[in-house]
């Protein structure tokens, strides 16, 4: 089945995209806790992952008010109906990829939450305010690791640069995807053109990259547009869903 064949209302599409991204990021971080270079880093992976899963639950609650309904979204939805971005789905045990992904994703999330502060739903506004405070800890963690890894050795710097080159275009997709014009209108938000979203995000990320001696990859606009949507569920998404649903599928609907 084509991944874009399953359609929902624009506002729901928006919350699904945000929730699915948080679910993917949260699952991966809790799954890789233990692969970090030191005990404290592993505590952080687990903590950040838990927090992202909590944020995912809030966004899912905008579509499904009951726990059973939210469980169906997570455990019973076809892979084709997931709206997560490639960046969020990126599943790697390499520390350099994890650090750069965390850094790029948190900057994207900060932009999303800033925009949600103007949503026409007071509950969404309150949650966005709260999440911004919590996300600051995540953002600081990844930025500190980016700084440590790039400054301590040339090999560390080389690996981070390589990871940045690899993830850069996927980050572009994640910046633009959720804020489709119809979704923004349904939430009472000003229309956010992809170029404007990208400009805001680049305005924050490029100075930080330069500060750490990283070169931002040049990207052809055409390439970004070509990769705007995934046609089929990617291997990482299928792997994540497989892990997440392994126990559930032993006895769907059971109370453990």
């Amino acid at each position, binding site marked *: 089945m084509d991944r874009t064949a399953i359609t929902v209302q624009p506002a729901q599409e928006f919350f699904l995209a945000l929730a699915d991204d948080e679910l993917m990021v*949260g699952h991966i971080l809790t799954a890789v806790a233990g692969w970090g270079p030191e005990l*404290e880093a592993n*505590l*952080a992976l687990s*903590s*950040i992952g*838990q*927090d*992202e*899963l*909590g*944020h995912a*639950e*809030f966004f899912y609650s905008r579509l499904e008010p009951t726990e059973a309904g939210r469980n169906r979204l997570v455990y019973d939805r076809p892979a084709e109906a997931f709206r997560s971005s490639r960046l969020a789905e990126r599943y790697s045990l390499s520390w350099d990829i994890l650090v750069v992904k965390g850094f790029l994703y948190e900057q994207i999330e900060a932009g999303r939450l800033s925009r949600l502060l103007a949503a026409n739903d*007071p*509950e969404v506004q*309150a*949650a966005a*305010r*709260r*999440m*911004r*405070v*919590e996300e*600051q*800890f995540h953002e*600081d*963690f990844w930025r500190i690791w980016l700084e440590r890894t790039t400054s301590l050795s040339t090999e560390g710097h080389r690996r981070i640069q390589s990871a940045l080159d690899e993830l850069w275009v996927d980050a572009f997709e994640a910046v633009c995807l959720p804020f489709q014009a119809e979704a923004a209108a349904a939430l009472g938000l000003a229309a956010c053109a992809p170029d404007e979203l990208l400009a805001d995000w680049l305005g924050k990320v490029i100075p930080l990259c330069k500060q750490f001696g990283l070169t931002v990859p040049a990207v052809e606009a055409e390439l970004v547009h070509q990769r705007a949507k995934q046609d089929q569920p990617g291997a990482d998404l299928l792997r994540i869903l497989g892990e997440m649903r392994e126990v559930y599928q032993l006895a769907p609907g059971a109370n453990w």
Partner: protein
Amino acid sequence: MPIGTLNQETIWAALDEVEDPEMPVSITRLGIVRSVEVEDGRVLVHASPTFMGCPALPTIRSRIIERLLALDGVAEVEVEWVLTPGWSPKQISASGRADLRGLGVSMPTPSKGEASVCPYCGSSNTVVESLFGPTLCRSISYCRSCRSGFEQLKDVASSE
């Protein structure tokens, strides 16, 4: 307790006996319980999560329900998580702060960059070791004076 004495005071006293599953301190002293509504045997508890992803929330909810249903006259209990106003360490009562200090957990510093106070010896000669501790709401610090590790609640209020 006979039916008819069910009121705010009774409910708050019962909630004071409910401990946070991640540290043995009352949820009312931690400032998690924000308000209570009582009407015809139905109790609605408004509570604020310390962090939205706190894995203890379902346990806190079930502990509240279990404790309040044990009161005579309570037929139904609902727990609603509220984000406005958001929880912050400022909501912790004086007795809650004393309980935390006894467990080796210090409060956030009044301003960013200021050293936290060691809950064991009171020294400010301390350093943050990790922003992330054993739970979402705590970080890990080290006291250079008494050479003890300790935990500190994260400051989640200042920028909200």
